[in-house]
């Protein structure tokens, strides 16, 4: 059972690695976007799927990573990835630390609402103050480089760099999930009271997870800003928080590969519903299709796409579904 999971993930990464050989520039751009979404979704999976903290404000860290990229980049010469990337992740992680410190004092529904509110706060800062460039947004004039080795202005280099980040983060999170820290987080998800009764101070664990998650979202934001060369306050819109939640539930909560599958499925659904060829005049109302798809997927795919084979097998064979421990 384990090996088929590993094989699936390895196959995904292999396909992604080989894709540039056959893809045109549009395809590569689309695939880069999906990989960035996947990174974003992975950050949320750590929080929601693994630790059980339903955060509805993940876009704040993504947006801050993106804005930091543009605001910290120099206009005169390409900035070095070596300091720009960590700085952007640190900015996102810093806000995550702040938001987490306050919102983790709340539970359940409160937590959902508070994280949403703090993300909205970041949105207003970007939207209403000159810091965020207002509704027009800001352009990234010079894309970062790593000496002469990597020039992220090149589409292929950016693609490869994004893929590398995705593989590293995926691997890192996989290690984290099976570490003592990861097991403690899982325990907090399943029964926080028991964890406390056993002697774990749960608040620092949750805060650490929240901050790491924010850093990864910041990384995704950095890559997105570099890819588009442009940021605007809409990147902090709470609808993006909703979108990334949809990605992980569509893919399957509780599995890292769910984030990969979900990001891909979400991007496809978006393209599908936006397609004028299929929907004609309704295409500009693609949110309708998306909304219905979300509702349908929550009802029909309780374990997400990743759990679909198991769900079908149980249906066809009539056997009780074995729980993945």
């Amino acid at each position, binding site marked *: 059972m384990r090996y088929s999971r590993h094989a699936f993930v390895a196959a995904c990464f292999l396909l992604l690695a080989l894709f540039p050989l056959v893809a045109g520039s549009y395809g590569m751009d689309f695939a880069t976007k999906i990989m960035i979404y996947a990174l974003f979704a992975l950050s949320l999976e750590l929080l929601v799927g693994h630790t059980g903290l339903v955060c509805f404000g993940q876009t704040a860290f993504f947006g801050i990573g993106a804005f930091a990229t543009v605001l910290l980049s120099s206009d005169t010469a390409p900035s070095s990835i070596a300091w720009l990337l960590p700085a952007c992740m640190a900015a996102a992680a810093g806000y995550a630390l702040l938001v987490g410190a306050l919102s983790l004092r*709340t539970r359940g529904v409160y937590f959902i609402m508070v994280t949403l*509110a703090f993300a909205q706060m970041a949105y207003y800062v970007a939207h209403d103050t000159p810091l965020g460039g207002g509704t027009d947004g800001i352009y990234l004039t010079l894309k970062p480089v790593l000496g002469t080795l990597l020039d992220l202005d090149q589409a292929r280099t950016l693609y490869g760099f994004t893929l590398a980040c995705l593989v590293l983060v995926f691997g890192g999170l996989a290690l984290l999930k099976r570490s003592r820290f990861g097991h403690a987080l899982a325990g907090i998800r399943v029964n926080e009271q028991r964890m406390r009764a056993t002697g774990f101070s749960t608040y620092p664990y949750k805060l650490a997870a929240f901050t790491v998650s924010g850093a990864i979202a910041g990384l995704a934001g950095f890559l997105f800003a570099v890819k588009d060369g442009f940021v605007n306050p809409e990147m902090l819109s*709470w609808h993006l928080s909703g979108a990334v939640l949809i990605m992980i539930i569509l893919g399957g909560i509780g599995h890292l590969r769910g984030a990969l599958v979900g990001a891909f499925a979400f991007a496809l659904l978006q393209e599908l519903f936006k397609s004028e060829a299929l929907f004609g005049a309704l295409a500009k109302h693609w949110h309708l299709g998306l909304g219905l798809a979300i509702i349908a997927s929550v009802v029909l795919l309780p374990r997400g796409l990743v759990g679909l084979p198991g769900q079908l097998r149980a249906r066809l064979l009539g056997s009780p579904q074995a729980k993945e421990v």
Partner: protein
Amino acid sequence: MDLAIFLIQCLNALQYGLLLFLVASGLTLIFGIMGVINLAHGSFYMLGAYMAYALAPPVASAFGGGFFATLLVGVLLAVVLGYVLEWAFFSFLYTREHLQQVLMTYGLILVFEELRSLLVGDAVHGVEVPPLLAGSLALGETMRYPVYRLFISGVCLALALAMYLVFSRTRLGMMIRAGSANREMVQSLGVDIKFLYRVVFAAGVAIAVLAGMVAAPVSSVYPGMGDTVLIVCFVVVVIGGIGSIRGALLAALLIGLVDTFGKVLFPQAAGVLVYVLMALILLWNPDGLFKAA
């Protein structure tokens, strides 16, 4: 700031706060009693505003009614909508976890937004203040205050009083309070809990729709208004404590003050002040001002 302007801002703060309370009370009721977090609640507010705009002509031509007739028709439609929506959709959410509720109601927001877009379009509209309430009151020597805004405050206060009376003095209110404390017990006592929930939900929707209708002449009617009011309502609920009507009122008024005076005194930071307030209150007490009764 001279006295007249100060008074005007206070009245504005009161009006905004009370309107917010009205919408937030529906949200906190639905969560407190049925345990459902409903992201689409802001959409009902938006629907109300668009109804005020879109229903005015047909109501006028059908039975010559004006603003108040439109309000009545809107509220009746809202009750029906709430009833049907609870039966068809929300009743399935009671047993689901918060994440699923969040996502399903988020999907509902998207559906509502697009349906509205298909039926009425995305343009921004104004709604006329009814002639009866179009006057203004003199405040001091040079300032005047629109009567309509006082009307809004009046409606909200009247509804708040009505809610309080229903909860504390009627059998229905008693059953609702009991149902929120112990669902199974109330069911086993023979109370039709499904019907109760449907009534509560329909009432919550109707209140939000009414708030939107009443606010339309002042706030104008635009696509994003549901989102904005939803998130501020969340802040109201967090600050006031979930399930607490009293807390929602206090929090809404507080936010009304901070927002109104913030816009005047610190225009740049106006949007952020409400969240700073929330952060400060969370620092002081994570459960908000009042825990649920």
